[in-house]
């Protein structure tokens, strides 16, 4: 379980993950905020449909990609949270069968 041990916590803001409101510290990046909220399943891979979450936290591995405010492929370890931000799990493969 991830938790903060900082003496001075920054003020709290609200972000939404899959529609659910989360109160998080405003100076966190998206990946850290989600981990602290107990979320580590950020996306589903395109080829094998496996769950993935953050791995390196320094912008190298691209495993923490997530949908932020409607945009796929955002590096959540490099983006700061902001009030009202809407975050969703990322699934870039085609989810509907009617196409193609």
């Amino acid at each position, binding site marked *: 379980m991830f938790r903060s041990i900082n003496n001075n916590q920054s003020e709290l803001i609200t972000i939404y993950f899959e529609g659910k409101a989360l109160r998080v510290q405003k100076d966190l990046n998206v990946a850290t905020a989600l981990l602290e909220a107990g979320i580590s399943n950020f996306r589903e891979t395109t080829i094998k449909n496996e769950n993935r979450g953050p791995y390196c936290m320094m912008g190298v591995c691209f495993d923490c990609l997530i949908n932020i405010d409607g945009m796929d*492929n955002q590096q959540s370890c490099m983006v700061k949270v902001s009030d009202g931000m809407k975050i969703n799990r990322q699934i*870039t*493969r085609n989810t509907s069968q009617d196409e193609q």
Partner: protein
Amino acid sequence: MQLLTLLTPKNMSNFDSVVVGGGLIGASIAYGLARSGQRVAMFDEVDNAIRAARGNFGLIWVQGKGANNPYYATWTRQSAKQWPDFSRELKELTGIDLAFEQNGGFDFCLNEVEFADRQIIMEKMTVDSDDEFSYEMLNNSQLKQVLPNIGPAVIGASFSKWDGHVNPLYLLKALHKAFKQLGGKLYINPITDLQHQGKAFQVSTATTNYACEKVILAAGFSNKTLAPKVGLNVPVYPQRGEILVTEKVKPFLHHPTGYVRQTQDGGLLLGDSHEDVGFDEGTNINEIQQIAKRAITIFPYLDSVKIIRAWSSLRILTRDGLPIYDHSESCPGAYALSSHSGVTLAAVHALDVASCIAKGDSLSPSLTCFSAKRFDV
């Protein structure tokens, strides 16, 4: 054949055919020959060799091809028609899904002149083909029905149901794998010499000589130096093309187009450039930028999509842009092939050209106009 075996010294291996070149053309022919029951060796270059096969956009493209040469247009259509069976055959044999689709392609027009010119070309191709080829011209609003993301600056597009696409890297892998499964032998060793001896050929690498009855040159730019050794001439020159590849995005483009292609995994290929820079396989930031700009013009949505890689490869071109298919008169059994449409023509190369060569025939009469003799004038 028996006589040849007896005469062969110990450090020689024998083959019915040797294919020089392991790219899309070489591997298609080598696979086709092995498929016809030949004992075949394919010689490929080392890992960092110049390879057009790795820079392919993956289009099986008919519209516009051979507009000024009906033979080439026919040849292209012949391959396009065989592609569905060809991809199925490779999949059954190797288990590799080539991500083949042939549901028609769009070629965009970015201004009125381009649109008018395109229509003339398409019409000519239709007439030349006795109405076998068909096309449609769509304006922006018609295009929007099929491609909702199309940008307002796109005047229109030509559409042809003949066009398709495939993963060119998996095609190359499948050809190699199928070749191997049919008993073909792959050598990764550059050819140092090639000699015609009586009714046979001796192909040499730095360490070994190989004897064969037929030799097929599909070695890209190396054809230029190898061909004269067997009485052939392959005047080709490089033209650089740069391609961009993006991160994977949700499927939105279900047809191949001339500039943008979405692969089965969701990544986009964006093409391309035409640069006269000799054998420089580098990339140029200005060209990359032009490709990016054009892609955004066509699909404004791409503005926020990231490029993962830009790369270039060298097209193997002739002065008239048409392929070279030649059979040597002075050294019967020697063939030279050169084309920059290794994907589109893979089916005819593997099925038609290879079976002609396997039988020991001259190339089919429809290909005589592609002899390099046309440049001798």
